[in-house]
């Protein structure tokens, strides 16, 4: 039970967006997809859930070609929480989560007790019982994210794909969302912007730059100053997280960063000639 990407390349409008993507998401693991804006993280994820078609390469689910599955059969195995979700229509939380049952139902088939049990279970798993009858559009960002995860859980898939699940969330919800996802016990592949957060929760990470994987493995081996320079073109300090020993990024100022001293009242100026 694993998801394998073999030599995957994807073209959009005639341009190669990602090339030679080759890695495995081990069963039951939490794998993070890291990389700068526009490096191709979302493209890789969208190719797995069929928004884009690969130009070359293969996607294997348990050793079998994922794209040869019927869409609904694939959706029973892989659920997705996509980025920047907006809803034009008025659905309650319960109705939203029930939509997750779509790949399991035939035309005209009604919601049965098993579906309702799955939905209630999914809502309970993300701790949104209180919100079940609320309108989705009245929820806060963190609540919405939980409901979308519940919808994916109701899908009953053993693989979960998340595209920047902590975007726009405050620190409390970032941690809660990551804890929730890592406690699910299913295989997770997530594009994550915050490298320190990824290091704290992911078993393995894949680092992408310019559409290619430049490093993969445990966070400790990938999130290094050299790799960050290579991928992001910027200097960072990396320290060990005092609780977990995982790498933690400390951003540095580009210019004029002097440690504050008690007697200095002037903030460091943006003088670009300090040769830092």
């Amino acid at each position, binding site marked *: 039970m694993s998801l394998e990407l073999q030599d995957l390349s994807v073209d959009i409008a005639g341009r190669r967006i990602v090339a030679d993507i080759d890695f495995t998401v081990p069963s039951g693991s939490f794998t993070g997809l890291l990389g700068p804006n526009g490096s191709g993280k979302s493209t890789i994820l969208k190719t797995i859930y069929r928004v884009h078609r690969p130009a070359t390469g293969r996607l294997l689910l348990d050793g079998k070609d994922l794209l040869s599955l019927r869409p609904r059969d694939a959706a029973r195995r892989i659920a997705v929480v996509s980025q920047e979700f907006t809803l034009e229509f*008025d659905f309650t939380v319960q109705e939203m989560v029930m939509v997750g049952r779509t790949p399991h139902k035939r035309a005209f088939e009604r919601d049965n007790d098993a579906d309702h049990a799955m939905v209630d279970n999914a809502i309970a798993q993300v701790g949104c019982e209180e919100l079940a009858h609320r309108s989705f*559009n009245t929820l806060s960002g963190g*609540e919405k994210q939980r409901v979308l995860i519940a919808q994916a859980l109701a899908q009953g898939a053993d693989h979960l794909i998340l595209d920047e699940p902590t975007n726009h969330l405050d620190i409390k919800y970032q941690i809660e969302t990551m804890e929730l996802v890592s406690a699910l016990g299913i295989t997770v592949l997530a594009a994550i912007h915050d490298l320190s957060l990824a290091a704290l929760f992911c078993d393995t990470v894949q680092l992408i730059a310019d559409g290619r994987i430049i490093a993969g493995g445990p966070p400790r081996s990938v999130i290094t100053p050299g790799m960050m320079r290579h991928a992001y073109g910027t200097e960072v300090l990396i320290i060990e997280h005092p609780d977990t020993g995982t790498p933690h990024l400390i951003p540095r100022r580009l210019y004029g960063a002097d440690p504050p001293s008690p007697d200095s009242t002037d903030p460091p100026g943006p003088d670009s000639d300090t040769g830092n």
Partner: protein
Amino acid sequence: MSPADPDAGVPADVGGPPPPAAGQDAALPTTSPAAVRSPPAPRPVPGRRRVPLPAALAGCTVLLLVTMTLGVAIGSVPLSPAAVWGVITSHLAGHPHYSVADAIVWEIRLPRVLLAAVVGAALTTAGTVVQVLVRNSLADPFLLGVSSGASVGATAVLLFGALASLGAWAISAGSVLGALGAMAAVFLVSRQRRALAPTQLILCGVVLSALFESVTSFLIFRGNPEATQSVLFWLLGSFGLATWPQLPIPFIALAVAMVYLLTQGRSLNALAMGSEPAAALGVDVHRLRRNLFIVTSLMAGVAVAVSGIIGFVGLVIPHIVRLMVGSDHRRVLPVGVLFGASFMVLGDLLARTIVAPQEMPIGVITAFIGAPTLIFLIRRRPYLYGASG
């Protein structure tokens, strides 16, 4: 913080006490003050009120029967509901009694009421689906160019005698041809790499509609000034020329479309989440969007062909139905058919009675009812209509 901010007034605590009613729909006064003041209450927060589906269906069926009975009974020669149903049952039983009342009910008013009902149902259904197709709750069935294309066809028939060999069917045929042409144009122009993206659909629909409207204007400009009045009348819509032979085609179109759409109820809900989430839910999004486009265009095209361009119904009625039963399309579609039909029958009744013996164009009635209703709905629920992004 804008009123459109969905986060407004909702505390961000998931596992904790239920949020106060401030975040609820202002139109739901069901939260008692006590429930607001005692946060640790284990009771779930009162949610969105939904009319249960059987109740909504039963209520709308009764509404439709009542409006249709009134629609047949009221007119220059008033009839009692009993007389109306007497005539109808006698015809259904195969033993009609020929009389003045029989002729009025069976030959004049009943076909008209049935045509209004089927057109109302078709426009409501088409509007509901187009709103999902372009992911915009302010879309209407004519957004995709159907009505302006039909105008070109009908105008060509009325002003220049095109398709004259078809006799009484020429206008319908002309508007269907125009609608199909417009639909094909919008479809081909907005297609990008086998996808019908919502934004492209809206833009191409709007642009091509404007183009077809100017073609209509050009035809009117070149045409006979006396004939332009009949064009204007046609553009505003009417059921005044309803006859029995006109009924089968719209009924069959509506029935076929409804059967297909009801099989796609879950997929429509998934598509309402967006194209990419729908794909992730196992929906073949390209095929679904293409089929929905064809089904709605045909339904709107047939409706326009038999009754002209009747605005606002396909925009406002889906909203009202969504307010009643929520956005689950397995509920919205069947309730919408009944409610849309009732609304149109009532609208037609008003159209032919309020300035009797003259007849008001039905499009004027639906606009006068529809526009204020829509504004009321938008002002009442700003978070929903402002949440597009």
